């Protein structure tokens, strides 16, 4: 007879669990792999059927993403001087010449400014509000908390028209500030609720000890509460950033020239010189990176953040 443990899972169940997790990972990762591999394909390779798993990688998609090109007549192409630089050479290979940079870099930068800006603002305001809700006697506290959450009870796009009109009147349409404020307004309810939960879990005694040790309320908050809440702040920041980063509907509606973010821009690449799937895929791949890096950097916190409070230490 072999001894078995009550708490340790059996070999079979471990094996089954491992298999399920692997399967799930494959299913979720497949679209990513698809996008990333398409971004390194040539135009014909990207639409070939059956799909090519093995192909000769090229950065055509990335060159096309960052440039605008024209397709001159073949006779004209032959009369041009030899290509100047790698990008020009890759463009020539496709029978095009580069006429200038595309607006992708600019749109990407807009996404970074608006995404991180609104995340930072949501976190700052959310942490302060959550602290106040957690620690102070706020009149009508429960009603206020419900009101804050109620902004999440409908899809934000349902109020798109009033916001559109409001923004036009206020001159906030198509501005970075306008988009940062909008995304902050959407995210703040999530931030307040999540962070209040985290701050509630921090024993008051820490601050009280600091107050007695001669610190002011704000110093105690900054030096004692904030380091304790780092985990919660990090995971809240990830959720806020993912929303602001991926938001499409408001971005389409409210931005066009100046403050347009990457999500509404990427689909427009399709229209430039035929269906350039590698360029679209390249845009999507680059667009994934910042959130991916941010999440990987904070992932230790994220995991602890999600399970926070489930088991008291």
């Amino acid at each position, binding site marked *: 007879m072999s001894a078995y443990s009550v708490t340790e899972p059996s070999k079979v169940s471990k094996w089954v669990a491992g298999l399920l997790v692997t399967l799930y990972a494959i299913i979720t990762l497949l679209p990513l792999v698809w996008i990333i591999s398409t971004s390194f394909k040539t135009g014909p390779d990207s639409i070939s059927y059956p799909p090519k798993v093995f192909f000769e990688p090229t950065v055509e998609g990335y060159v096309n993403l960052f440039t605008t090109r024209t397709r001159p007549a073949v006779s004209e192409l032959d009369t041009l001087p030899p290509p100047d630089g790698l990008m020009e050479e890759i463009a020539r290979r496709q029978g095009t010449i580069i006429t200038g940079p595309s607006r992708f870099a600019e749109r990407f930068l807009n996404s970074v400014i608006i995404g991180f800006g609104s995340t930072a603002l949501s976190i700052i305001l959310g942490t302060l509000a959550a602290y106040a809700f957690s620690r102070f006697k706020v009149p009508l506290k429960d009603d206020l908390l419900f009101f804050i959450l109620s902004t999440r009870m409908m899809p934000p796009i349902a109020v798109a028209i009033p916001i559109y009109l409001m923004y036009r009147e206020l001159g906030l349409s198509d501005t970075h500030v306008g988009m940062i404020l909008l995304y902050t307004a959407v995210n703040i309810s999530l931030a307040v609720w999540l962070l209040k939960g985290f701050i509630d879990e921090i024993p008051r*005694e820490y601050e*009280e000890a600091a*107050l*007695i*040790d*001669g610190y002011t309320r704000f110093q105690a908050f900054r030096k004692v509460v904030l380091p*304790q809440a780092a985990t919660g702040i990090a995971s809240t920041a990830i959720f806020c950033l993912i929303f602001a980063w991926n938001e499409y509907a408001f971005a389409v509606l409210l931005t066009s020239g100046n403050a347009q973010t990457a999500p509404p821009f990427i689909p427009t690449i399709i229209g430039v010189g035929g269906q350039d799937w590698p360029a679209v895929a390249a845009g999507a791949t680059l667009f994934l990176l910042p959130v991916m890096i941010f999440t990987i950097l904070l992932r230790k916190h994220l995991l602890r953040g999600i399970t926070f409070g489930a088991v008291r230490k």
Partner: protein
Amino acid sequence: MAEIVIRNLRKEFGAFTAVQGSSFTIKDGEFFMLLGPSGCGKTTTLRMIAGLELPTSGEILIDGEDVSQRPASQRDIAMVFQMFALYPHMNVRKNIAYPLVSQGVPKAQVQQKVAEVAKILRIDHMLDKPVGGLSGGDRQRVALGRAIVRNPKAFMMDEPLGALDAEFREIMAEELRALHDRMHATTVYVTHDQLEAMQMGDKIVVMNHGVVEQFGTPQDIYDHPATLFVADFIGSPAMNFLRFDGTAVAGAETVTLGENPVTLPQLQEPASGSLVLGVRPEHVSLSDTAPLRGRIEAVEYLGTTQIVTLSTPFGAVKARTSSALSARPGDLTGLNLSAPRLSLFDATTGRAVRTAANAGVFHG
């Protein structure tokens, strides 16, 4: 160090009154216990002295200065919490140094002070450890270190031994008292453990339902409880209560229980109606000839002594007797009550009747 005077201190939380009109004085250098069951207002009182709660009304004087409406940071008080409240993101050294850093003390001086304090508390070998891995006793030492490092006017301790194992509690109680005897720092200590209060305190305030029931030295409170609540709360086993109806005039030296006259300290005020005679178990002795009769119900052996539970017409009585005395459940016997140590209470008000014995110990 400082004297702390509490005058008519009151705290309301909405409709609930946590502390109602407390008054007492904590002398300079005293080890002062706030004792009572949970919810009696002792912690609220402590937190008001520390400045973590502001009183609804009343005065708190530290060294003659009214600080009742000042924030904690301006009161120069240190506090030790039940859950230690060590800053988890700092190591032992930083925890102890923290109050000094807040005052802007120069670095070299901070290091020196921390080393000094760590030595006193015998935690100098663990200064660079994170606080997370420490045992309960060591955590409490670090918390004490953080409190004593800046020589505050007074220490507040909120059940500092409550979170420790029984074994550590004993050791830390001794250490605390030894530390106090060495530093003579005014200390206010909250506990619900009457044994701890008796063992460590110079003075005790017993609170119940937000009211100060009695204030005095452990001995006075034990020997001459001012109310039925105090009599019941202090001592283990608790004081015996013999309930009877009777009348006694001022100056009387006996009361009549049923048909038995019982001698007690001379009454200084009249008492009548439903009364309670209080007697500590150690002041009950068994004697076959005594007129007050009882039946032995149970015997608990405690080594040198035993607790004999008897049923009498006036209620159950526990007697602490020598283990050598033979007592068998079912036996009928007589009870002698030691006259000078008896207390008489008015059952309706719950207050002790003033007698020659307790007159001197009651404060207001």
